[in-house]
């Protein structure tokens, strides 16, 4: 009967499309498969949608247009709430537009030049540090999604929960939770549409007008892919963290160059910034701040201001900061 035919076709298509994970508590292998496909989906699919970022009681919405074309990704985010903001990025650079300040900043992306293209598969980086489980299915933005839990094996890092589109494997929603299960940060799509084609015109900055001032933050050359030229050492890190990048760069006018070391365990990230204090004898200000899942710790070492920024518990960020020392010549 005609009424039954579409249902049988739909059911067959769904069975063929969806991996064999039907129940809560899916195996690690199944969770791994979903996460691996999620990592690849964003590199190969074009989409647009409305994204909401929530941190505590603060909620901000933005529009995202993402284009994947021949291995190249480009993306444009436009704020829909609060002051207008626009960000356009590709593998070469990130362009930020701030209409309220009539300014455009272009930050060159140096990673495609420096680091090898062949990085370990995402899941292989973290499966020794986190346990994976599939909690079942849910609905996000009107789409069915797998719910995958990534739970740390030690208390030094946060838990992540991912809602991954069952059809496309795009990430639809993510939570970062603390050890008490409280949600520190949430990002989710309230609407999303896959596109076969996105014209390049939708990926060019629109908010910048005539008369805006453009600034290009071209860093001075002082970089080492392996961090061997870094002038500081971090003597303690959570298990699994390794240095993934090092730069020396002035981040703002009238400020000295900043040593920036970046570390990651494959999921959580940590940055160490060391900047010579303008006033070497200044009274030290220990400063600890928290912004959703991001914690920072700042203090002085030998006339330098050291700041650690990381998506890690505050006590861990502070411990890393306390282990930093200058390299002996």
């Amino acid at each position, binding site marked *: 009967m005609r009424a039954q035919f579409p249902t049988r076709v739909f059911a067959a298509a769904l069975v063929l499309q969806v991996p064999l994970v039907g129940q809560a508590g899916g195996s690690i292998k199944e969770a791994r498969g979903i996460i691996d496909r999620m990592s690849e989906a964003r590199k190969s699919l074009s989409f647009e949608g409305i994204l909401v970022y929530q941190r505590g009681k603060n909620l901000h919405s933005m529009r995202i247009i993402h284009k994947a074309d021949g291995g190249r990704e480009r993306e444009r985010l436009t704020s829909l709430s609060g002051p207008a903001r626009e960000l356009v990025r590709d593998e070469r650079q990130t362009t930020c537009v701030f209409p309220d300040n009539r300014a455009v900043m272009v930050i060159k992306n140096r990673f495609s030049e420096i680091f090898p293209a062949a990085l370990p598969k995402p899941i292989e980086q973290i499966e020794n540090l986190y346990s994976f489980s599939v909690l079942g299915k849910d609905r996000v933005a009107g789409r069915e999604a797998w719910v995958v839990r990534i739970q740390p094996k030690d208390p030094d890092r946060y838990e992540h929960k991912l809602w991954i589109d069952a059809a496309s494997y795009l990430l639809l929603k993510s939570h970062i939770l603390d050890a008490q299960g409280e949600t520190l940060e949430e990002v989710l799509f309230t609407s999303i549409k896959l596109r076969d084609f996105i014209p390049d015109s939708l990926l060019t900055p629109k908010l910048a007008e005539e008369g805006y001032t453009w600034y290009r933050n071209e860093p001075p050359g002082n970089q080492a892919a392996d961090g061997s030229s870094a002038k500081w050492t971090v003597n303690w890190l959570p298990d699994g963290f390794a240095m993934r990048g090092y730069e020396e760069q002035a981040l703002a006018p009238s400020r000295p160059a900043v040593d920036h070391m970046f570390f990651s365990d494959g999921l959580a990230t940590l940055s160490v910034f060391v900047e010579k204090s303008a006033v070497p004898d200044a009274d030290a200000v220990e*400063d600890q701040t928290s912004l959703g899942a991001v914690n920072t710790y700042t203090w002085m070492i030998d006339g330098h201001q050291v700041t650690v920024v990381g998506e890690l518990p505050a006590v861990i960020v502070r411990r890393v900061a306390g282990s930093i020392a200058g390299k002996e010549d």
Partner: protein
Amino acid sequence: MIDDKFERCSALIDGELSESEAATLIADLGRDKSVRETVGRFYLIGDAVRNAVPEHWRPDFVSNVMKAVEEEPFWLLSSPESQAKKKWLVGGAIAASVCAFALFMSRAEQGQVWRKPTLIAGQAMQMSEGTRRISSAQTQSTPQHPLQTRSTSATFAGESRLNSYLVKHNQYLDNFTVQGVAPYARVVGYQGGR
């Protein structure tokens, strides 16, 4: 742009506010984005005037700032002191457009909502061998004058610095981690949440 708030920021920088006025404006720094932007502009203009900007910035940056300060129209006010200050305020406002790049790095652009820094005095800290702690923050916790220009600027500058660090930190996320949270959603979503 020329309004009471702007004038009060200038007076704060110059140490000309009364104790109660300074306390009120310092409190506004934490709540009012426009006040933070204005104070940030003043500091950057000062750097440009002192030719203290990095060499690799646009070579005409300093001259543009000075030109903007000098060329703005100058309003007739009741006293020479007010007139001089007004010219500076107007020039400062126009020069702000030239200093817009610095504001990108300031907490205003990044839409901070950093928790106010807590000055930790005398708290034990596990340190690795070879490091030493300079000093604690006792002096800042007991200011001699409500208008602690240095502590105010330190707080403001510290938050500006944190925001620039966040941008830089986010630049690495996409390349080295599992493709989870939409990259830069934090940057775009960091807006005035006060």
